[in-house]
């Protein structure tokens, strides 16, 4: 008896079994990748995958708790939030300091935008807040610089494209409060956004700036409705 002999009947039955095997993890690498790619584009297979996942997840209870070895969280945190050398490009305090200290021209050219205005005094800038707004997989990223002398945020798009019938909207999230809209923003140019008193009241290190994709003209409800395409916390440099 070979597997070719299985009378699975219709091709959809064949697909049902394939997706079940996929979810269980029984397929060889090449086939696993192939089925995964099909699931991503075929809604019926996606629904099938959901069915199996949801049903099989009921077995999750059978995984017994085993206390994790000490030190794992520390290593994860170092990797994710790390010290400057471990934190990657955006989290690198050294990089931002070097930009602030005068590496401006080189760094700004390297990323294709003039991030800073030349008139900013480096000492003043050194006390400014910066936020790198990005999101894995979205392709949209911004850098935001807070200028306390004008109470404004200079937002520069580093990457991203306009989406038909949609607008990007900027939000400030302060502490545990609901996001406050800072308005619709362009993705193709730089913009200076005057910070409203409402936002300014709680604005500081740790304030999260997030960009969502909203309907044309921005969210009509005053609360974000679309997906977050970029976000980042303000950091003192």
């Amino acid at each position, binding site marked *: *008896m070979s597997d070719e002999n299985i009378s699975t009947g219709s091709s959809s039955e064949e697909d049902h079994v394939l997706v079940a095997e996929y979810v269980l993890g029984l397929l060889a690498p090449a086939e696993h990748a192939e089925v995964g790619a099909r699931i991503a584009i075929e809604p019926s297979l996606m629904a099938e995958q959901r069915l199996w996942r949801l049903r099989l997840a009921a077995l999750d209870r059978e995984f017994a708790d085993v206390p994790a070895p000490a030190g794992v969280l520390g290593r*994860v*945190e170092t990797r994710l939030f790390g010290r400057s050398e471990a934190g990657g490009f955006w989290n690198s305090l050294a990089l931002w300091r070097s930009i602030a200290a005068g590496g401006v021209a080189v760094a700004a050219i390297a990323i294709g935008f003039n991030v800073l205005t030349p008139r900013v005094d480096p000492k003043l800038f050194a006390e400014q807040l910066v936020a790198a707004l990005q999101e894995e997989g979205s392709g949209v990223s911004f850098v935001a610089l807070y200028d306390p002398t004008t109470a404004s945020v200079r937002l520069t798009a580093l990457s991203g494209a306009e989406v038909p019938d949609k607008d990007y909207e900027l939000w400030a999230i302060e502490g545990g409060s609901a996001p406050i809209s800072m308005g619709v923003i362009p993705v193709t140019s730089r913009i200076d956004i005057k910070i409203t008193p409402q936002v300014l009241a709680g604005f500081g290190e740790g304030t999260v700036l997030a960009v969502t994709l909203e309907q044309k003209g921005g969210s009509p409800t005053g609360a974000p409705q679309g997906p977050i395409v970029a976000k*980042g916390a303000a950091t003192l440099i």
Partner: protein
Amino acid sequence: MDGPAEITELLSRCALRDRQAFGELYRRTSAKLFGVTLRILRDRSEAEEALQEVYVKIWQRADRFVAGGYSPISWLVAVARNHSLDILRARRPQSEDIDVALEVADTAPDPERAAVESGERSRIESCLSELDTDKADAVRGAYLDGYSYEELATRHSVPLNTMRTWLRRSLLKLRECLSA
């Protein structure tokens, strides 16, 4: 393990880059997820390494959960389970070294989820019990232990193709029962 609502909230805060929430999420869920990686990988140091990668992914993809709508614990287990299976798959002899993307449930919200979930457990149990015991065991072995067809065939002392045929038929039967 804490209630789903609390885990959901911690995941949402992770999506907003709340590091404290991440630490809290780790403290509440790491024993469960270590249980998953250890059971599937069957090697303590590998399981520890995997756990580390799993939490990196959880932090990076926390917002997908928020957008998804899925039991938070199932979602976390799925990340740990899929990661462990990827490791096994890459290690198996027939491996062709294909980089398989993490497949976690970034699916559309399911409004029936909460109501359905409580019934799921008894449902899968009763559907599995309709299968022959060894076939139900094979399904469990694949899901909970990450056994391949080869390992299942060895464990049940049947030829590989027989195991494949068995299991595929059982899955169809199981599906019929589960979607009834």
